[in-house]
């Protein structure tokens, strides 16, 4: 079976749904961060897949965007974890149901 774009897109969509489910259903802040990172990874898979099956695969545009995206995801994870630690120090919990100070 030869790999086609559709297979990668299905993979990417599955990955995005898993990430979304994790972000929506988990109560722990770190799991939510992991879910968000999964959704980012799904987007990266899309970038690479569309580049691989594009009419001009000689130019590595998709890979470059993916690498940038991974770098940004790393930075985002660092900031997110720092926030989680700060929130934990303040509230002594990382359960997002308890963190409702932003309510109107």
């Amino acid at each position, binding site marked *: 079976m030869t790999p086609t774009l559709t297979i990668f897109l299905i993979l990417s969509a599955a990955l995005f749904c898993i990430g979304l489910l994790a972000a929506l259903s988990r109560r722990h802040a770190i799991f939510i961060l992991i879910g968000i990172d999964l959704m980012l990874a799904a987007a990266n898979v899309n970038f690479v897949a569309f580049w691989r099956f594009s009419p001009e695969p000689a130019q590595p545009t998709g890979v470059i965007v993916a690498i940038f995206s991974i770098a940004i995801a790393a930075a985002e994870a660092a900031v997110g974890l720092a926030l989680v630690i700060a929130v934990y120090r303040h509230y002594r919990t990382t359960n997002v149901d308890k963190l*409702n100070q932003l309510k109107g």
Partner: protein
Amino acid sequence: MSSWIVTYLWLIPAVPLAASLVILMLANSRRTASAALAIFGQVVALTMAVAAFLPTLQTPGYRAFHNFTWFTFGEQTLRIGWVIDPLAAAMLVMITLVGLCIFVFSIGYMAKDKNFTRFFAYLSFFSAAMLGVVIANSLLLLFVCWELVGLASYLLIGFWIHKPSAAAAAKKAFITTRIGDIGFFLGILWLYGRSGTLLFYDHGNGCLENAGLLLVGASATFIALLIFCGAAGKSGQFPLHVWLPDAMEGPTPVSALIHAATMVAAGVFLVARVYPLFSLGAIDGVTPSLTVVVWIGVVTALMAALIALAQADIKRILAYSTVSQLGLMMVSLGVGGVAAGIMHLLAHGFFKALLFLGSGSVIHGCHEEQDIRNMGGLRRLMPVTFLTYAIGMMTLSGVPLFFSGAWTKEEILHATAHWPKSSVPYYLMLAGVVLTALYMTRQMIYVFFGDKRAASEHAHESPRVMTMPLIVLAVCAIVFSIALTPAWPWLHGYLSGEPAHFEIGQLIQPMLFLSLALVAGGIGLGVLFYRKAGATDPLAQAQPAIFRFLENKMWLDEFYARTVLAFAHFAARFSDVMDRYFWDSLVRALAGVGQLFGILSSHFDERGINSGVDGATTGARGLGRFIAARHSGQIQTYLRAAGVGALALLILYAWLA
């Protein structure tokens, strides 16, 4: 040389005014200081008056004036100023000289009064106002000073405020003269409307000069008559004379200064000042306005002389005599003898002040008794007063040759005799001369001759400070005649602007014998009639009805009470009722309508506008609460919503594509 004098002419009234203000600020106990200040002010004014008098001697018909702008109102410029001419200069000297004598006399007369300082403040104030009237070169300035004179007169008549009669007399004087002044003021307005200026002399543009008189034109008659209303009020002419006898409630020096010598002369002075208005368009020296002046004067002169015959109060007799003499002056002005009228005014100033001060001395000597029926035989007890009073009496009666009043009276009779319109005033004036001699003889006999009566038992001569002014005024009354005789009619020439020549042959005129006969007749009749006068008046015994008529002042006061006052009372009551019931209910109805509108608009506000705004705010608040409730702070809820939204968009996209 004379121009600077006229520039500083205002100082003449200003000095007594300043003295008056300073005295008002002094404590009641500073009696010497206040009297000294008042007399000092008067001496300064007299000195300056003489200084202003001198340049008028040099050229006949001299006239200098100084005008300046008082204020500008829109395009109208109101200018006032002062003038010095023979008329003003002669008045200035007479007023300050007589005033000085009366000020000195007052020191003695008011010695025991506790409001001594206030008295001198008022006297000085009066003097200042009167001098202002004389030097005014604008009808407006004259009117202002005229009213100040009226105020001073009011204050001084009512000086003894604890006496109800004095307060009533002050009010009566003030209101009666105000009636005349309304006419005067209307005349001023009319004159201003016609000529556009109130200056008397202004290099040919004043209202008394050719250009101004041309503008006035035919309305001069009415303007003159309106101004005469004011003059009649101030000078006690019929029918506004009623206040003058009552004004004798004031202290005697006041009666002498204001109601005999100076203030009442202001009316005569005013007519003389605006004489060109009266004589405008004269045919043979007769105009309608001057004719009115003549007849009013004749009626006043004769009526007052008759009433004087039946009065018992020494000052009231003199008051009616003043009214009568002022009538005489008015007649003189009316028939064209302006110089004669002013001469009589000046002479009258001296001898009437003398008579009033003499009566003051008598009253003082008799311990405040004023009824001549209680006096008698005073000639031995009060020799100086008697002699000076006799001189005053003979001057007033017009005994020829030695007394100033005689010459001026002859001059007036002379002018009246040549009036082309009618000879009735002339004969009535002759009758007035006899009556004057008669009532003065009656008074002399009652006061100074005969047996002592109740009040003269303990009479005494007045102190030197009171007799000295009497002597000075008596000397003036005699010496003044030098300038009046037909042999050397200096004053006549001075006033009318013609040089006088000395001709001894002119001294004896036919009129002299006539007036000698009349005066001798009057005095002889008086002596014959009143020689044996007792407690009841001989006239009252002979003709009780006529005497009662005259004693009650021809019932004019009662007549006014029945007519003018009754009408005023009725009008007041009518206005009161109108005000209380008609206007008040109208105002109340209007107020009710206003209240109704208030209630209606209050309800509209409450129910309509206010509740609408309330509903809007409630809705906004509910919406806010609903949205705030959605804002739970649960980030996963937000994320879920975002996810649902994205899914919905996706479905929409798929459905549309």
